[in-house]
C-alpha cells in the first residue's frame, strides 16, 4: 500500500517537482506513471524509496510513515521495495550470481538461503544458465533482467521501476514487460515510470499522468495519452 497525502516538493533551485500529490496505490496494483520529461515522475518515484524527502505532506509505504522515520530506518524501508532503473545499475566486477546475491547478503541472509533464492529468481527471469557470466558479456535486455532479479530477490511487496525499458529495443522491452507482469500476478505492487507509449497502450493498467508536479490524470486501464479528450 502506497499513500501520498498533500505531498509538496520544492528543490533548492526553486523548481517545484511535486505540487499537492494525493495518490493511493493498493497492494497488488499495477500503475504506470507517465508524463513529459521534467514533469516530476522521477521525484515521485524517488520520494517512495526516500532518495528524496518531500518539503511537506505525508507518504506511507506499507507500515512506514516516511515523514516520521529516522535515517537509520531507511534501509529497512528499502528492503520492502525493489527498485529497477533504466541504466540497470549492476556492479561490473561481480558475476550475475554475485550481483543478485549482493542484495541478500546485505540483509544478512544465510549463504544456503542466498544460493537457493538467487537460483530461483534467475530462473524466473530466464537467466539461470548465465549465473557465472559478468554483466558486460550480456545484452541490454539480459542485464535488465538481472536487475529485476536483484530487485525481487528478497521478495519485496512493491517493485518500483524507473524507465525499465528505456534503453531496450521493442522486442526486448516486451520480454521485460512479460516478466514484470508475471511478478505483478504474484501479488507484488508495480509502480513503473515510462515514456514508452506502445507498452502503456498495449498492456493496459492504471495510468497516473503527472505534469508540473501535479496529477493531471488517474485512470484505470488508461492509455498513454488521455483518450477521453479525443471523443
Amino acid at each position, binding site marked *: 500500500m502506497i499513500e501520498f497525502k498533500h505531498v509538496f516538493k520544492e528543490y533548492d533551485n526553486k523548481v517545484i517537482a511535486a505540487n499537492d500529490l494525493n495518490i493511493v496505490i493498493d497492494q497488488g496494483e499495477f500503475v504506470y506513471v507517465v508524463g513529459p520529461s521534467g514533469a516530476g515522475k522521477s521525484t515521485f518515484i524517488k520520494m517512495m*524509496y526516500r532518495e528524496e524527502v518531500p518539503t511537506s505532506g505525508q507518504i506511507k509505504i506499507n507500515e512506514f510513515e516516511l515523514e516520521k522515520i529516522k535515517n537509520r530506518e531507511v534501509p529497512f524501508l528499502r528492503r520492502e521495495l525493489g527498485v529497477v532503473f533504466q541504466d540497470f545499475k549492476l556492479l561490473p566486477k561481480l558475476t550475475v550470481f554475485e550481483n543478485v546475491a549482493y542484495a541478500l547478503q546485505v540483509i544478512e541472509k544465510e549463504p544456503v538461503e542466498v544460493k537457493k533464492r538467487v537460483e530461483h529468481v534467475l530462473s524466473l527471469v530466464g537467466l539461470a544458465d548465465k549465473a557465472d557470466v559478468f554483466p558486460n558479456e550480456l545484452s541490454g535486455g539480459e542485464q535488465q533482467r538481472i536487475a529485476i532479479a536483484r530487485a525481487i530477490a528478497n521478495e519485496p511487496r512493491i517493485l518500483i521501476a524507473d524507465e525499465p525499458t528505456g534503453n531496450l529495443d521493442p522486442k526486448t522491452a516486451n520480454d521485460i514487460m512479460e516478466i514484470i507482469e508475471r511478478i505483478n500476478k504474484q501479488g507484488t505492487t508495480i509502480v513503473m515510470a515510462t515514456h514508452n507509449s506502445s507498452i502503456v497502450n498495449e498492456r493496459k493498467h492504471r495510468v497516473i499522468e503527472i505534469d508540473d508536479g501535479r496529477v493531471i490524470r488517474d485512470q484505470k486501464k488508461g492509455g498513454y495519452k488521455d483518450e477521453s479528450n479525443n471523443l
Partner: protein
Amino acid sequence: MKAITFKRHLVESCKSLKRNGWMSVAAFSAVTVTLLLVGVLLSIIMNVNKIASDIENDVQVRVLIDRGTSQTQQAALRKKLAGLDSVRSIKFSSKERELKNVVGSYGDEFKLFGGDDNPLNDVFVVKTKNPSQTVAVAKKARGMKDVYDAKYGGASAKKLFKVVGGIQKWGTGISLLLLFVAVFLISNTIKITILSRRNEISIMRLVGATNGFIRWPFILEGAWTGLFGAILPIIVVDIGYVWVHGILSASLASTDYSLLSPGVFLFQIDALMILIGIIIGAIGSGLSMRKFLKI
C-alpha cells in the same frame, strides 16, 4: 553482527586493498612515514623520561664538613641533618674517598694532593625524599655548626628538568600533530578509492544495506592499511634502537644513568605502533565515509 557477515567484511576489505592497488600503497606510505617519526619520537621521549627519573633519584646535597671537626661533632651534625623532615638518607664520604673520586674523574695528576695536602673536606651526602627539597635542605645545612658549605646540583638539575620537560612537551605535541596529519592523509586517500566506488555504495544503499554494513569493509580496509603501514617503521625503529642503545650505553656506563633496555621496551613500542597504525587507519577511513552515507 553475524559471524558470516563479519567474515564477508574481512574478505571484502582485503579484496578492496588489492583492487585499489596504488591508492593502497599511497595510504600505506602515509602511515609508514607517520609511524616512523612517531616511533622515533616515542623512543626519545620514553628514554628522556627514564633518564629524568634516574636524575631525580640522583639529586643530592653535599654537606661539606669544616676541617678539624671532631668525630663527636660530626656525629652531632649527622644527627641534626637526619632530624630534617625531608631527608631520606645520609652517607658519609671521607676526604680521602672524595679525592679518589676526583682522581678517578680528572686523572692521576690529582694524586699530588694526597695525604696531608688533601684540600678537600669530609662530606655528608644527603638525599632528599623529593628532588625539589634539595634547595631547602642545602640552605638549612649551611646554617648549621661545623658546616663549611652545602652544595646541590641545583642550577644544573633545574636546567636539566626544563630541557626534559621541553622534550616531553614538544615531542608529544609533534607526535599528536603527525597523527592528525596521518588521519587526514589516510582519510583523503581512502576518499578517492570511495569516489570510484560511489556507484557500488549507492547500489548497496538502494538494496537496503545499513550504513554499518557499508562502512565496515572500509574501516577494516583502513585498519589493514595501518597494520601493513606499521611493518617498516617497526623494523627501522627496532634495528635503529638496538644500534643507538649499543653506542650510548657504552658512554653512559660510567654514570648512574641508563637507557631503557631494548627487550621489553621494543616490544612495547612495536605493539604501540601497530595499535596506533590500526587506529589512525580505521579512523581515517571511517571519517572519509561520512559524506557518502548521508541519506
